[in-house]
C-alpha cells in the first residue's frame, strides 16, 4: 500500500466517518469560468465542507470567506495541501466556539482605550466577535469595490484584498483591518500545525510539510546522531488513543520510520 494511501486511511479512521469519499476531489481549484458557474461551484464546496464537519460558530458565508482566505495564506501547491485542504476553517470554527473565541481565562474588564502597540490586545471584542465583524466588513468592502463577496472574487482579486488588509491599505468599519488580519494569520498557522484533534492539520498535512513527527518518541539515542535526518510517519494524539500507533511503556510513540522498509 502506498504511504499516502495508508496515511489517508489511518487518518480517515481516526476521524471516524467525518471525511466523505469525495474529500480528495474537492481540493481541485475552482475553474476560472463565468460568475454563474463559479457561484454554483462555491455552493457545492460550501455544502461539501459543511458535510465534513458541521460548523458550530461560523455561518456558511463566513466559512466560505475563510476557505477562500486561508487558501491564500497557506496555499495548496507542489509541496502539498494548503490550509483549506488541511481543514483550517474547521479549526477556526472550533476555536471560536470554544474558550479561545470567548476569551476564557483572559482579562475582559473595561475601560477599553485602544492603547499602544506595546500594550497588546485591547479590543472590547472577543476573537469570535472580531471574526464576525471582520468578515462582514471585508465582504462589504469587496462588494463595494468589485461587486461580489470575497469568496466569489478571482484569485488575483482575493490576493489584492488580503494584501490590503495586511498592509493597512484597506480600512474596515468595526475592527482595525490589521488586527483582524493578524488574528486570522496566527490562527491559520495554528490550525495548520496543531494536533489534528482540533480539526485542522488534516491528514497531518502541516507536519508532513516540515517533517515534524508529532507526539514524540524517546529520542535519548537519536539526539546524538548528528546530521542524520529523522524521518518518521507523524503520530497524533488520537492515533494513540485509538491505538492506531504503537507506544512504549511510558506512552511515547514508537515511530514508524519512512525509510524503514520493514514498516511498509
Amino acid at each position, binding site marked *: 500500500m502506498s504511504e499516502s494511501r495508508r496515511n489517508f486511511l489511518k487518518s480517515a479512521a481516526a476521524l471516524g466517518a467525518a471525511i466523505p469519499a469525495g474529500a480528495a476531489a474537492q481540493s481541485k481549484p475552482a475553474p476560472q469560468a463565468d460568475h454563474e458557474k463559479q457561484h454554483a461551484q462555491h455552493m457545492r464546496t460550501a455544502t461539501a465542507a459543511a458535510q465534513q464537519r458541521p460548523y458550530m460558530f461560523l455561518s456558511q458565508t463566513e466559512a466560505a470567506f475563510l476557505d477562500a482566505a486561508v487558501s*491564500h*495564506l*497557506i*496555499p495548496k*501547491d507542489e*509541496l502539498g495541501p*494548503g490550509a483549506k485542504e488541511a481543514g483550517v476553517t474547521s479549526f477556526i470554527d472550533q476555536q471560536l466556539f470554544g474558550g*479561545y473565541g470567548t*476569551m*476564557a*481565562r*483572559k*482579562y*475582559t*474588564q473595561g475601560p477599553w*482605550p485602544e*492603547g*499602544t*502597540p*506595546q*500594550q*497588546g*490586545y*485591547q479590543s472590547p471584542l472577543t476573537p469570535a466577535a472580531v471574526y464576525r465583524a471582520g468578515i462582514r466588513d471585508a465582504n462589504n468592502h469587496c462588494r463595494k469595490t468589485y461587486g461580489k463577496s470575497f469568496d466569489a472574487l478571482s484569485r488575483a482579486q482575493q490576493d489584492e484584498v488580503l494584501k490590503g488588509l*495586511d498592509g493597512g491599505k484597506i480600512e474596515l468599519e468595526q475592527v482595525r483591518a490589521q488586527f483582524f488580519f493578524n488574528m486570522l*494569520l496566527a490562527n491559520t*498557522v*495554528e490550525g495548520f*500545525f*496543531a*494536533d489534528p*484533534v482540533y480539526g485542522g492539520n488534516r491528514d497531518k498535512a*502541516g*507536519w508532513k*510539510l*516540515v*517533517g*515534524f*513527527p508529532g*507526539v*514524540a518518541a*524517546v*529520542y*535519548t539515542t*537519536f*539526539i*546524538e546522531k*548528528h*546530521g*542524520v*535526518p*529523522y524521518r518518521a510517519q507523524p503520530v497524533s*494524539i488520537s492515533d*494513540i*488513543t485509538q491505538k492506531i500507533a504503537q*507506544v512504549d511503556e*511510558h*506512552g*511515547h*510513540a514508537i515511530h514508524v520510520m519512512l525509510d524503514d522498509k520493514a514498516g511498509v
Partner: protein
Amino acid sequence: MAIKLKPVDVVTVGVGLTGTILAKELADLGLKVVGLERGGWRDTHPDFDMPHAHDELRYARRHELMQDLSRETLTFRNAIGDTALPMRQMGSFLPGEGVGGAAVHWNGVTWRFLPWDFETRSRTLARYGAGQLAEDCTSQDWGVTYDELEPHFDRFEYLYGICGKAGNLKGRVQLGGNPFEGPRSREYPNPPMKTSHVGAIYGKAARELGYHPFPAPSANMTRPYTNPYGVTLGACVYCGYCERFGCEMGAKASPQTTVLPVLMKNPNYELRTLANVIKVNLDSDRKRAIGVTYVDSRGREFEQPADLVLLTSYVFNNVRLMLLSGIGKPYDPAANAGVVGRNYAYQTNGNVTAFFEDKVFNQFMGAGALSMMIDDIDGDNFDHTGLGFIGGGWIGAASSGARPIDFHPVPSGTPRWGSEWKKAVSRYYNRAFGITTHGACQSYRGNYFDLDPTYRDAYGLPLLRMTFDFRQNEYRMSDYMTKKAAEIAKAAGASRMNVNPRTGKYSIVPYQSTHNTGGAVMGADPKTSAVNKYLQSWDVPNVFAIGASAFPQNGGYNPTGTVGALTFHALEAIKTKYLKQPGPLA
C-alpha cells in the same frame, strides 16, 4: 464576614518552587504549616500523562498550565505619564498558577549568578568609575555575597538534581565547564546533558573564535536521581515538549518531582488549593502580621492567623500583597523615595536565527534546558571600558523542542504568508536554529510597580501596575552581544541569518522570558530595600518575601538557581536565628 480559622505557625502564600521548599523544611521542625495556593492540585500522573501532554496548542499556545488572567492580571505602560492598560492575554511572560507554580512548566536552565552580580554597583564604581552608570540607574549591591550564598546554591542544586559540569571547583578552573562561574564547593549532582547536533556545531564555532563553550546546567535529569529528601526523579527522554509543558517522565525537577511527595505526607503540613490570598493582615500598630485573608473557590472568605507569613507568590504578588497590605513604604519615583515596587527589572533578550543549506538538525528533539552556552560576554567577565554599558549575559544555542506552531523560521525578507512563505518554512524548518543573547537588565528610577488607579481584579482589588522600558545601557549591551552571536553563526557556516538585537520600546506582546525581578528588593539599607539580606521585611519582621522579587536588578542568567539559593539562605536565618528569637534579623 470572614470565617476565622485556627491559628497556625506558618503560612505560605503560593505553593510553587519557593513555597514548597520552605514548607517542607519548617514542617520538619514540627511547625504547623499551611500552604495557600490560588490554583488547583496537579501532579505528573494523571495531569501530564501521555499522549495529551504532547499538545502544542493546548499548553504552548493556550497556556493551560498558567495564570488565569480573567481573575487577575497586571497593567502595563512604558513610562510614567502613559496610561497603563491591562495585560488581557499572555505574552511577554507566563506566570504560573496551580500547585508547583511556574516550576511545573519551566525549562530548567539552572544558574548561579556571578560573584560580580551581587556587588554590581560597588564593583562597577571600583573598576570603571561613576561615569559607567547612567544617572537614573538604581542598580545596587544585594547585601549578600556569592560566598555567603555558595552553600545554599549547593543545597538547591542537590535538591533539584541539577545536571552540569563544574567550571570552577574551589577556585580551580575545570575543563568542560563554565570557567567564569564563582567557585563551587563540589561537582553538580548529575552529569551534563547529551550534546545535540546544534550544540556541537555551535560549540565548535564558539571555540574556534576563542570562547569557552559548555553545556548549560539543567534540571532535566540525565539519569534517575534520588535527592536528599529521598524523592526519585526519572530520566529525561529529550521529548521536546518541555518549556510550557509538564513532564510525563517526572524527569524535570519541579515541586512535584522533588519536594511534594514528602511534604504531602507530613502531618504538620496542610495544603489548601483554589485559595486566593488577598491580604496580609497586620496588627493595629502595623509592625506585626497576624495572618492572611483568602477567598476560596466557593467565594467564602477566610482569615488564617499565623505567626510567620511567607510570601512565596512570585514577583508580582509578593509586591502586590505588600502594597495592598501596607507592608513597607510604597516607592515614589518622583521623589525616588519609598521601597515597595522599586527596581523592577527584566531580561534583555536578543537573538540570531542561523539558516543552513547543507545540514539538518532534528530540532524537535531536545529538552527545556538542553543548550550549549558561552559566558564570556556576561557580567564583568570582559572589559567594558569604552563600551558605554555594564553587564552582559549568556549566549547560547538551545535544542529545547522545535514545535511547529511557534517554530518555523524563515529568512528575513520572506513574505509573511503565501506560497513563498510556505516554501521557506518547508525548506528551513529542519535547517535552522536560534542563538539567544540572554542579556541582563539594570534597574532605573522610572521602572517600578505600584497599584493601578483604574483596573481591578475579580475581588475588586487594584491590579499591580508595571511601568517599564529598556534604557541605553540595555540597547547597547544587546547590540554588542547580538553582534558576537552573529559572528558565531557565521563561523558555524550559516548561509543566511536574521539578527535581532533588542531595539525599540519594550512590548508586552511577544514572549521574552518569565524572568521578572525586583519590586521588593533586598539590601543592607532600609532606604533602598524592602527586605533585608535575609529577605525579611524591614517594617514587618514576621513577613518574608521570597523570590526574584528580592533581586535589586537582573543578571544575565535565568533566575531560578539564585532564587533557590536565596530561599535556603532565608530558611537558614529563619531556622537558626528567627525562630529562636522572633524579630528583626540584623
